[in-house]
């Protein structure tokens, strides 16, 4: 099984987000970036499957501006064999929709004949959670979203446990398939220094988006990006009886 793993360069999860004063977006210049944490989990699962001999090759994919190469190098250091960077300008990258990312993934899958695509369940910047099901639709492959466990089911099938709203469900999907990784699928490894050094020698292919014939015309225009309304702290009460009195006052407890 040849696995393609999508990795996105996003603002690091620990960074406090600031909205630009002109309301055009979020400040990303001069801010720490890293690999989308859910993509790290997707990558880890693919590498694990390779270690278990269930996968033969793991290729990391990123669609983005020049700096996306950084997360691809990280992916190589964490066990990907090769990397593909589908290149756009930073300006174009800011306008990409899940739809475009899925289309670029589709082209790479068709050119290089992958058996599975692993993605994070969502990117922590746009929180869209759409690329995996769009890609599955484009390829007409089954989709195993929000995966928390992946097992070989034999005869070209995989068994996937998924985190759904009220608990878990288990499905069997036919290979080839698209998977999106949830938080509990695994704990991603750290890249060790020797592996970071080795990663520098692994192949990283650059493909300008126009070479893939993917139309990245936006279908969603940003009108404005604003800060969420700020909550005002209401202050402290002295003890439990004062708390109960407040709850009564607000009608949550019968007086």
């Amino acid at each position, binding site marked *: 099984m040849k696995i393609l793993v999508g990795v996105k360069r996003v603002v690091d999860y620990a960074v406090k*987000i600031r909205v630009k004063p002109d309301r055009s977006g979020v400040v990303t210049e001069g801010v720490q970036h890293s690999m989308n944490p859910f993509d790290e989990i997707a990558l880890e699962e693919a590498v694990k499957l390779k270690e278990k001999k269930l996968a033969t090759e793991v290729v990391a994919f990123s669609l983005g501006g020049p700096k996306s190469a950084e997360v691809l190098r990280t992916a190589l250091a964490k066990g990907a064999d090769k990397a593909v960077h589908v290149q756009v300008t930073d300006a174009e990258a800011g306008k990409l929709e*899940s739809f475009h990312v899925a289309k670029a993934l589709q082209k790479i899958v068709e050119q290089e004949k992958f058996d599975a695509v692993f993605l994070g369940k969502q990117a922590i910047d746009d*929180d869209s959670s759409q690329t995996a099901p769009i890609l599955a639709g484009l390829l*007409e492959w089954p*989709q195993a979203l929000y995966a928390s466990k992946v097992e070989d089911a034999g005869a070209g099938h995989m068994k996937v446990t998924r985190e759904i709203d009220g608990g878990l*469900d288990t*499905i069997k999907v036919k290979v080839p398939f698209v998977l999106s990784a949830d938080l509990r699928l695994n704990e991603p490894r750290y890249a060790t220094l020797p592996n970071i050094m080795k990663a520098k020698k692994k192949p990283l292919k650059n493909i300008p988006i126009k070479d893939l014939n993917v139309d990245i015309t936006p279908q969603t225009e940003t*009108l404005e990006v604003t800060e969420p309304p700020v909550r005002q702290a209401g202050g*402290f009460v002295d003890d439990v009886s004062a708390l109960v009195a407040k709850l009564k006052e607000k009608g949550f407890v019968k007086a």
Partner: protein
Amino acid sequence: NSTLVVAEHDETKLAPITLNAITAASKLGNEVSVLVTGANATKVAEQVAKVNGVKRVLVAQDEKLKNNLPERVAPVILASQKQFNFTAITAGSSAFGRGVIPRVAAKLDVSSISDVTEVHSADSFTRTLYAGNAVKKVKSTAPIKLLTFRGTSFEPAKEGGSGAVENAPSADIKTDLSEFLGQELSKSERPDLATAKVVVSGGRGLKSGDNFKLIYDLADKLGAGVGASRAAVDAGYVPNDMQVGQTGKIVAPELYIAIGISGAIQHLAGMKDSKVIVAINKDPDAPIFQVADIGLKADLFKAVPELTAALP
């Protein structure tokens, strides 16, 4: 011109989030049709027909649609789209809706928009980014709007409709791609976390899974759903489906009581739209107090039993 809402249900009851989605869909300005797919779709369709604002209910009842796998539901939606030319195809933003709507969008070659929190017009919407730390208003130029709606952002549609029920056009449903093997739903007599009017959540301050009994006892007095912080889930106190936060569930109840939760950004992202927030924590500098309407600095092991006892 009509908007389609794809219904979610468990073969007997309509999922509450579909009622929220119907409200959101009606804000798009066109009449609302609802598609019910499943092995026992007819029964659910009768419930849907009584929902206020629903003009037409399409039913696709087929054993192959049991458990509503997205690979099988998508062709039914596409067949319905072919016949009715909906201007929008929508669902609640649940694991089901987020799975099926983008899949259909791909087949229609349009860009879908997920987790919409506000509908301004037929083509402009608001959604959040960065776990709710930024709010984005967008205009969609897609020829058909494919949307999922965040349940907590829209009131549930009420009863009082009399929609016409008819069969959905037949579709070629392939069954070889995926198969449903089973599910383990958390059994609970308590209200569902995502739709409960009151939610009581516990964090790492509880120190163990056994101590969550304090949370359950309080919740039962208030008729509340029970949630947890990611720290409590990661520590193994409670299962993951109780997690409230950026990586868990987003809730917006009338009353949210956070107990032994410090208030990491990741948790706040999941509950800060609650109408009234109460926080009980022994650390007065815990960030949770910055968003709490009522704060109580106290040892939860003393304060929570006292509170439970004080409630009628």
